[in-house]
């Protein structure tokens, strides 16, 4: 008799989900954002199929505005896992020079929402793993593990398939696809505990270090590429070196830094537990259109 811990059970569930997709989908892909949740998801994929490499590629839907450290880890992680890395940058957004300063919400829509749809269509993927968790946000709490999308990538919360036991219905018509969330039942603390227990490599930006920062519209940001910032902002932002870290990673000009001295995993978890603002607050995305921001984005095809 052996009592499994909550992490062991979460791990077993995630692995089971990934194997179901590998067995039933025609052409799956794992979306990889280089954040800590992606790191855990990738680690679980390695475990699920060992000694084979995961039988699908990794894909990064890039905005060209991610942190340099993220790009570096992206290449290394794919290589370590023995997986093909696909990168997609929306050609239209690239041509129009869409950026977070001049284009606001359009930046996320063009690079991420539209970019993701283009990438999935271009490669013909019929199932895409994503690292979203149900504890992140209210509308996520109701999303299925296998989330069915129309040929236009739309999500209809009223037409979700009931999901019973651990039986997932992966059937779909031509052109339709499924987003699969193997980390649905993990919480932020579970993710951190698992990273510690499994010694998973994550982007160093999660740990506090002295970094060049600037203030913008009341938030604190890191100047990851000062020359590019200057070009887009029209002036060189005033840089101050501060000990900062990031609680969530997205586009560098959209991801608020927090002043912190937490330089180890235990410190970071301690800070996370003691802090009284929730994870996504550092990201601008959920605050659009009142509380219904994420729900609306998902109906339009955002992950």
């Amino acid at each position: 008799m052996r009592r499994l811990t909550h992490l062991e059970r979460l791990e077993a569930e995630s692995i089971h989900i990934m194997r179901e997709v590998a067995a039933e989908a025609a052409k799956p892909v794992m979306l990889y954002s280089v954040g800590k949740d992606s790191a855990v998801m990738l680690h679980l994929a390695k475990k699920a199929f060992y000694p084979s490499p995961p039988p699908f590629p990794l894909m990064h839907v890039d905005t060209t505005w991610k942190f340099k450290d993220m790009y570096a880890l992206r290449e290394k992680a794919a290589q370590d896992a023995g997986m093909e890395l696909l990168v997609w940058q929306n050609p239209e957004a690239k041509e129009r020079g869409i950026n977070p300063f001049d284009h606001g919400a359009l930046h996320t829509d063009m690079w991420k929402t539209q970019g993701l749809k283009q990438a999935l269509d271009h490669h013909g993927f019929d199932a895409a793993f994503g690292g979203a968790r149900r504890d992140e946000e209210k509308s996520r709490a109701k999303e299925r593990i296998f989330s069915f999308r129309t040929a236009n990538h739309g999500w209809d919360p009223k037409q979700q398939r009931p999901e019973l036991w651990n039986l997932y219905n992966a059937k779909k018509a031509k052109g339709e696809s499924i987003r699969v969330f193997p980390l649905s039942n993990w919480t932020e603390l579970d993710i951190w505990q698992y990273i510690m227990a499994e010694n998973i490599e994550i982007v160093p930006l999660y740990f506090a270090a002295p970094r060049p920062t600037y203030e913008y519209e009341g938030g604190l940001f890191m100047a990851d590429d000062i020359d590019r910032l200057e070009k887009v902002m029209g002036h060189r932002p005033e840089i101050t070196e501060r000990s900062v870290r990031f609680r969530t990673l997205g586009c560098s000009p959209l991801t608020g830094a927090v002043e912190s001295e937490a330089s180890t995993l235990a410190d970071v978890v301690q800070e996370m537990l003691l802090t009284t603002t929730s994870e996504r607050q550092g990201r601008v995305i959920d605050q659009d259109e009142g509380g219904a921001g994420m729900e609306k984005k998902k109906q339009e095809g955002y992950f």
Partner: protein
Amino acid sequence: MADASYETDALIADDINAYLDQHQNKSLLRFITCGSVDDGKSTLIGRLLYDSKMIFEDQLAALEADSKKVGTQGQDIDFALLVDGLAAEREQGITIDVAYRFFATEKRKFIVADTPGHEQYTRNMVTGASTADCAVILVDARKGMLVQTRRHSYLAHLLGIKHLVLAVNKMDLVDYDQSTFDQIVADYSTFADEIGIETFTAVPISGFKGDNITSSPSANTTWYDGPSLIDHLETIEIANVAAQEKPFRMPVQWVNRPNLDFRGFSGLIGSGTVKRGDAVRIVPSGKTSTIKTIVTYDGELDEAVAGQSVTITLEDEVDCSRGDVIAAADNPPEASDQFEATLVWMDDEALKPGRGYTLKLASQSVTATVQEPKYEINVNNVGGSGEKLATKTLELNSIGVAEIHTDRPITFEAYEDSRALGGFILVDKITNATVGAGMLHFSLRRASNVHWQATTITRDHHADLKNQKPRVLWFTGLSGSGKSTIANAVEQRLNVMNRHTFLLDGDNVRHGLNKDLGFTEADRIENIRRVGEVAKLMTDAGLIVLTAFISPFRAERDLVRAMMEDCEFIEIFVDTPLEVAEQRDVKGLYKKARSGDLKNFTGIDSPYEAPDEPEIRVNTVEMTVEEAADHIISQIMPLK
């Protein structure tokens, strides 16, 4: 307000490593909360999240603002707003789907399925209950047991939940009166006995005020000597642990074959434990072998238990693939193709008895047909008289007991013994929607006792002797489209070519084999199923079978297709527009249908679903009968 208690665990600040150690080895309990609309479910869950410090300050600020704006608790915090997710339902003030919430105490992580209480959403509650170890049934202390209380308890019991908690909520609104609580508990006990619930635990609470949620007894209920809700949830035995006591079963999900030297079978262990060297049996083939290694990314294991995802290698080269179950050699599960099951219908379109659905059970997917239900269960009157209702079908959110037949044997166990091998879903073959869920009770015949007679002369021998490849040429089209005429012409040509054929004609079959069937949708489905079975036997005998049936429903044609060997089913769409067929009206049937003398006539008051991708299509407006027959012959060459 409870703001004063809103402090984080002191250990986090004092010794984070000790805190992490403590939390690294928690167990995991999944439970479901059920109650009717106003029983305060969302408030209770909001309270649990709040009391276990799962709400951040910014969320708290948003909550306070929302409470004032749309809350139903005046100036107080409306905890329900924390958990009522989607915008549409926030406006309606009700929860419409299953939402999953998370919180943790020092001992356990909890996953809560929050499911709605109103009648039309049985499917959501069943979904939430399917993964739960425990159900918290909420009752409003002012109202006592309601019809919904009985229904929710029944559903929880039906889904095999062993631990029931009766949470008598809103005790603050009855002045924490002990006799009110005692009366509700007594009423519930009587009901629980009636429907076979062995034990339950009753707790008097106030989700709104916080009484007996985290500690007990609250100052307001000094008469209560039981555990608080959380204390109780922390001590419930987890089903996953109990499953380890049962015989070993692992449904194979995926065959792991990185190179020629390694062949592993990956799966989630459904029950029991497994060790290196254990004797195992592959079901349904019955082949035996021995466990060679239990492989994981973290190294080989000596032993693995129910709930772990592993990869197993065997000592022998035995056939084993997705859908098979690796089981204890001396105690394997049965395989069968006919069952009795309880079905919960989850789709707007009612169950069609006789139609082929995809049945998924563990990693097995087969085609299954459901017979006309034996009865429907009146969930509002379980335990009472009138519990069983006569019915011919199951509508959305109804529950019934029916026979299920599968097109090949599947490995199973009774649901009460194993959720992993006893629970299944039904998927519509056209819409791909999950239309039903079921729990197997028992096999109607021991398939293991009706082995296929291994005949010496096989279907290949029959076909070889006739110098042909057996096939079914399935003509479908409207009445009067020319199916029989063209099929007849095709058969003549095959006969001239010395081929052995048989023509099954719709009208002729109805004089004999199917004379007991009428023209309702259900009867038409059964008509086609029987013809399919006869055609199948004839292909086994090596014949080229021609069938001429309207066969209006795509699902039934696909069902017949699924019965046949690959490439042996040739669907021929005799494509004649309704106006043309009606004009021909060889048998005068359209006239009768138009005048109302003939009901359920395809094309008039019953639909015809044209094939999407038939193997062959003939257009009888552009082609003569002779041209159509020649075209079909050219398409099915060579004949061997």
